[in-house]
């Protein structure tokens, strides 16, 4: 979000280290619909650097490797401890959180340079910033909430066994980062552009409709399962099953299982998907006979 250039106290640690340069290649794009282009940067190496600190240094220098004056690279971040879900990008071609992408490890993979690209399944806003509205829209679709009466006092919630808690907690750590969607071969980009004669409301409606035609994604299926297993949440279980069996629902999953491999929170997504598949099977059969 906002970049802070803070040279570490350790910045000048050791003569040998301060000479080292980290080469970075960033795929930039000035605005939606514009051509993207590569830009190279060279940043002095510091111990315990991560990709975020690289981007902070780039912002502070505002200069490309060949000394050209350039605008700082735009990117998203907030917590810097892999819990807010802001900083997803493609680091060396793979989707991950930039804040836990340690430079030392990346250089082990490829000592030549570090490559940064925006996520490919979401429309680029600028440089490494993408528009992930669709991720949140999917949560609306599956009604990812407990339908309580309200915030007035009704005593404590239902009793829940430690086993149930241990099952629910990991699912509940999903930070809507979108890694699972980026890596999913079944999830494809949906980019809707506002028309000149279109009001913000109409555009919003049209865009949501377009999102809803696309694959809902592993994260939302997992959230549906989370709330369908909560004692109060399950009161609207059928509505969630309806959502995940409508267009773009669970049937779109091709079981590539990339989602679970890239999820920074190690959420057992494929387990959720399979449980959702089972629930959908039962529900669909029941519906068939209840008609």
């Amino acid at each position, binding site marked *: *979000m906002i970049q802070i*250039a803070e040279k570490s106290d350790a910045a000048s640690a050791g003569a040998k280290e301060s000479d080292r340069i980290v080469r970075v290649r960033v795929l930039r794009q000035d605005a939606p619909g514009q051509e993207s282009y590569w830009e190279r940067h060279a940043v002095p190496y510091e111990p315990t650097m991560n990709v975020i600190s690289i981007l902070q240094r780039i*912002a502070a220098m505002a200069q490309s490797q060949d000394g050209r004056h350039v605008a700082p690279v735009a990117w998203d971040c907030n*917590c810097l401890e892999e819990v807010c879900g802001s900083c997803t990008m493609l680091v060396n071609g793979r989707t991950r959180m930039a804040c836990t992408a340690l430079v030392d490890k990346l250089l082990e993979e490829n000592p030549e340079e570090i490559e940064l690209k925006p996520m490919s399944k979401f429309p680029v806003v600028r440089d490494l910033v993408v528009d992930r509205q669709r991720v949140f829209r999917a949560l609306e679709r599956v009604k990812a909430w407990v339908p309580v009466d309200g*915030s007035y006092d009704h005593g404590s919630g239902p009793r829940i*066994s430690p086993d*149930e808690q241990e099952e629910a907690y990991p699912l509940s750590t999903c930070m809507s980062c979108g890694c699972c969607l980026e890596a999913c071969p079944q999830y494809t980009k949906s980019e809707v552009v506002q028309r000149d004669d279109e009001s913000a409301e109409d555009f919003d409606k049209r865009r949501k409709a377009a999102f809803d035609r696309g694959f809902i994604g592993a994260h939302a299926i997992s959230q549906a399962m989370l709330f369908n297993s909560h004692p109060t949440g399950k009161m609207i279980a059928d509505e969630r099953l309806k959502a995940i069996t409508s267009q773009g629902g669970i049937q779109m999953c091709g079981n590539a299982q990339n989602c679970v491999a890239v999820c920074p929170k190690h959420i057992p997504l494929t387990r959720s998907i399979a449980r959702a598949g089972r629930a959908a099977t039962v529900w669909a059969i029941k519906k068939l006979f209840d008609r």
Partner: protein
Amino acid sequence: MAQPRVLVIGGGLAGLSATMRLAELGIHVDLVSLVPVKRSHSVCAQGGINSVNALTRQEGDSEWKHFDDTVYGGDFLQHQPPVKEMTDWGPRIIDLMDRLGVPFNRTPEGYRDQRRFGGTLYKRTSFAGSTTGQQLLYALDEQVRRFEVDGKVKKWEFWDFLQPVLDESGRCRGAVCQDLVTMQFRAFPADAVILATGGCGLVYGRSTMSMVCTGSAISRAYQSGAWYGNGEFIQVHPTAIPGADKLRLMSESARGEGGRVWVPRTPHDPRDPRDIPEAERSYFLEERYPKYGNLVPRDIATREIFDICTTDGLSVEKDQLCVYLDLTHLSREMLDRKLGGILEIYEKFQGVDPRVVPMKIFPAVHYSMGGLWVDYQKSGAGGLEPGSPRNQQTNIPSLYAIGECDYQYHGANRLGANSLLSCIFSGLFCAPGVVASANGGGKTAAEESSRLFDTAMRRQEERHEALLARRAGDENPYALHQELGTLMTRTATVVRRNEQLAAAYGEVCTLEDRWQRCALSDTGNWTNQNVVFTKALGDMFPIAKLILKGALQRDECRGAHYKPSTAMPGIAATEPGEQRREAEQWCDRFEMNTRRWLKSTIAKHGSDGHTQISYEDIDTSLLPPRPRLYGLVGGDVIEEVWKERQKKADAIHAQAITSGGLSP
């Protein structure tokens, strides 16, 4: 008449809980946030949330004791009625969050499990794994999304709050905000505006806080005339992991499980820590506090670690201040079982296994107790009057502040796991009062003349254009921010000295002047993070100044504010009579100090750009102030003397009542 609308700025725990309650009360809410609300800083809180519970109650705990712990921990610097109301609400809030689906850890029988946190004897802290803040925030985010689907809430994510809009009478009628993507400005007419924008850690450069915790929003309100309370009270956490981009929290539990803090006796010993023999290590906490060892209270640990690095020059690294926090003597199996989560964080960010190599840690700025001054209305029961429009209202009518950005609940020092409670409480509790205020009669903000908003918009547009147009400047905003952070960290954190504070105030003024010459490296008008940051930086200076000035003027030690020149050392004497005499003196001095300094600092933004400090008396009607003696040498003697004095005072008080001289 048009329906009243409320504008909430900030979607952390405080902003979301207020939004939820307002929507429930039928008010249309516009919710503005710099980041998608689900990504707010509240997700970082790990430890838990405090409240009395069925279990502690049976051990003698009560709302009152929670209240007492909070006030005592905060060194009595907070008005007591709001704190009492908050602790009274604690159990209800946990119940509510439980119903909303927060996966709190469970006992084998299926009840909520609790752990113990600092500053109390009871297991009051409910927790959900090691990400309680995240879980609480998500539960509220989900409820707000539900209202959003129903059309009762409209989110404006990636929007920056720029200024409140005030009418001629000084009442807040809305705000001007800017879209961070298109860079467009928009005026939001609103019948009440609630600020829930969190802390201001970035004034210190790096802290344990998130990147949007610039304090820009509160600074903008402050510069528009809102008062700022207790700014100088900044909590510094003793153990954080230094990082090039952020200082990440290392939980206290590492020491709780047997972690030892040490430095090599030779400054910057280049050897691998594992090769340094015991004799050449200084376990300075254990040496100086044989009784408490590594588990001395937070502020003391912080001060000692800070001192050994700065004053004694024994930092592990030459270019970076840090000490070792050593777990390598503990069994791997135990570490994995009890500390797995937090050790993973260290490993993830440092790339080093703390089970094998001692961790390097250093104190870091963590929380701002101070914030916008807010009002309250006391109830007959000593708590707050529900539904009063005064609750949480700043000195600007119809402008409210809640959560970490108000000054109300934590006094001079916040207890662990109390902040999440205060955020949710202030959000939920203020809502009915805000509704009352919004319905307050007269024309609604939507019917207000557009001139009011146009003027404010134009002002912001001009500021923006002027920034973009600045070309000749030779200052780099990121470098300036770094300078500000270093300066503030050096002078206004753990140990404060008047000459340093005074000099720092001057230096911040210079930095502010230099900021005027900042050149932007991006002058475009699309997702320009450069200009947004530069603006936020400009707004950090007023906050930095009020912190420094408040600290400079407060000549005492209280909570997180520590001035060696005013410290009240413990008792030196060993002979009982002498001890007693010293204790009497100590108590005299304490009483004098209380009379002089038990006051909130109120900072106002002067028209000349300087901070004006005044003081406000504190409502201590429920609990008389008493000395905070954690870890003080001779504390037991002082306590004895103090109790005798209290008894005497109570007797006089009681006599006065029976003789009808005083009302209770």
